């Protein structure tokens, strides 16, 4: 990848983009993948991806992807979504695509806040976390952080669900493996796969990049433990 991207300093999207592109090349599926970009920071993902991509309305990528996959079952269909897109406004689409067992791959980037709009509370904002709309820290009145992997693993339709992070070289390598496994799950026709990746948003969190790595490790992982939640491969 030879391009300067628009993401902020220390943002995890760049790492995840690179992992995805590496995996897609290694699996030799670049010419048959159709990706759906979310509304959120990664809406411009297609600036850096050299494969067919479409923007969907906020939250709707799983519905769009489900239709594409049903029409072109031999193509690889992937959505790339943030926590607002997937877990808030698009909660229903995510839930039902997973429940139908649509043979698509969802890359879910969880950075515990709304990055693009300036760091407001996300459904995955952790308890006591300060955001621009939880100035005193998220408390019970704001609701609890939503655990997507834990939720989806219970559904009959899901095949492979894993949560990883990109806060250390070891976890980055694990993330890459997880992405590869998820796309392979689709290639083999097994069914719905999702990889949730805990990612840094230093700007949204009002931390420096170093501190943000620390924060993923200390605060986010407590709320969102890493691991394979479902593997029916």
């Amino acid at each position, binding site marked *: 990848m030879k391009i300067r991207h628009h993401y902020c300093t220390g943002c995890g999207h760049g790492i995840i983009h690179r992992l995805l592109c590496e995996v897609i090349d290694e699996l030799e599926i*670049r*010419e*048959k*993948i*159709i990706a*759906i*970009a979310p509304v959120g920071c990664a*809406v411009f993902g*297609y600036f850096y*991806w*050299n*494969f*067919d*991509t*479409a*923007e*969907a*309305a906020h939250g*709707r990528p799983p*519905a*769009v*992807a*489900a*239709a*594409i996959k*049903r*029409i*072109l079952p031999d*193509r*690889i269909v992937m959505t790339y979504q943030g926590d607002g897109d997937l877990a808030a406004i698009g909660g*229903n*689409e995510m*839930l*039902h695509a997973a429940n139908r067992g649509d043979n698509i791959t969802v890359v879910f980037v969880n950075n515990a806040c709304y990055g693009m709009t300036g760091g407001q509370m996300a459904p995955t904002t952790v308890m006591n976390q300060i955001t621009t709309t939880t100035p005193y820290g998220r408390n019970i009145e704001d609701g609890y952080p939503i655990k997507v992997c834990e939720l989806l693993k219970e559904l009959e339709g899901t095949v492979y669900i894993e949560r990883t992070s990109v806060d250390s070289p070891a976890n980055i390598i694990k993330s890459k493996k997880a992405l590869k496994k998820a796309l392979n799950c689709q290639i083999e026709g097994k069914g719905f796969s999702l990889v949730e990746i805990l990612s840094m948003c230093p700007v949204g969190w009002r931390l420096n990049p170093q501190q943000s790595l620390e924060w993923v490790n200390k605060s986010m992982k407590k709320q969102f433990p890493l691991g394979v939640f479902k593997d029916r491969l």
Partner: protein
Amino acid sequence: MTKKLLKGNYAVVEGALQGGIDAYFGYPITPQNEITEYMSQRMRAEDRVFLQAESELAAINMVFGAALTGKRTMTTSSSPGISLMQEGISYLAGCELPAVIVNVQRGGPGLGNIDGAQGDYFQSVKGGGHGDYRLLTLAPSSVGETYSMCRDSFDLAFKYRCPVLILTDGVIGQMIEPAEVDDTPLKKDKKVKDYGWNLTGCLGRERRVVRSLYMKEGALEKLNLRLAERYEAMKKETDWEESDTEDASLILVGYGTSARINYDAARRAREKGMKVGYFRPKTLYPFPSERLKELSGKANFLVVEMSMGQMVEDVRLAVSKDTHVEFYGRPAGGIPETDKILEICKKMTA
């Protein structure tokens, strides 16, 4: 062509199949449930894609996905469901994707009722969703026309790369009457065509991006100008039906079900010796304004709608200044009464 007794909602399905539909997505809502039900049966029998979505929101976005691939796709709903779909319709317009949407109108606002109504005219032809876009809007007034418009709408959608809306209502959807249907066997085209804009995976070509977000200065304006050009070009699709307008001093104007009522009223008025004509727009966007303007020199107009007056505004905009345009309507499931129309005709032709 064969004459077949057909329900309006079934005509949507048979017409769409004849028009080469590849994928249907929908969510049940009265009074169009027969479409979703019958689609599930016919589409699977014909080896095409059918999926009952989890909501109208999902349905229209599935249509968006199907349209991305360059396939012929459709969703159907009724008023409240169509409101929910407006977001997706705006995205279809912004991404220049072809799709067909059928609105079997019912009473509103809100949950309203399930009776046939015409309260969604503004929503259909003046926007509905956000942004500066138009829908090519067709208004059938019979079961046969529902069939043929659904059949032909896919070609129109692809011709203009825009969503086409078929605006019908509970009365036409639920009624049964003989309709002319094609005898030709259904076309089966499983091939993935390349139109130069659809996404199929970038094998053997440059990758493509379909989007409606344009942040670069002037880029979005360019898109809008391109769309506007297309909406202008659409005007050659303008279509209407008229009878007894030559010598008429009063012309009844209505679309869909209210046009059928006008048809009865105009005939009865003629029997009573009143010089009453009949005019029915078949396309609501583009609207047959020019023809109405021509007619307005000689006649006044009575617009009848199953609403409190929506299309009447377009008629008023179309006609010459000194033309008298009256309105009679009944909203939310009320059926305009022929006697009442005749009463107004009498006053206006006196």
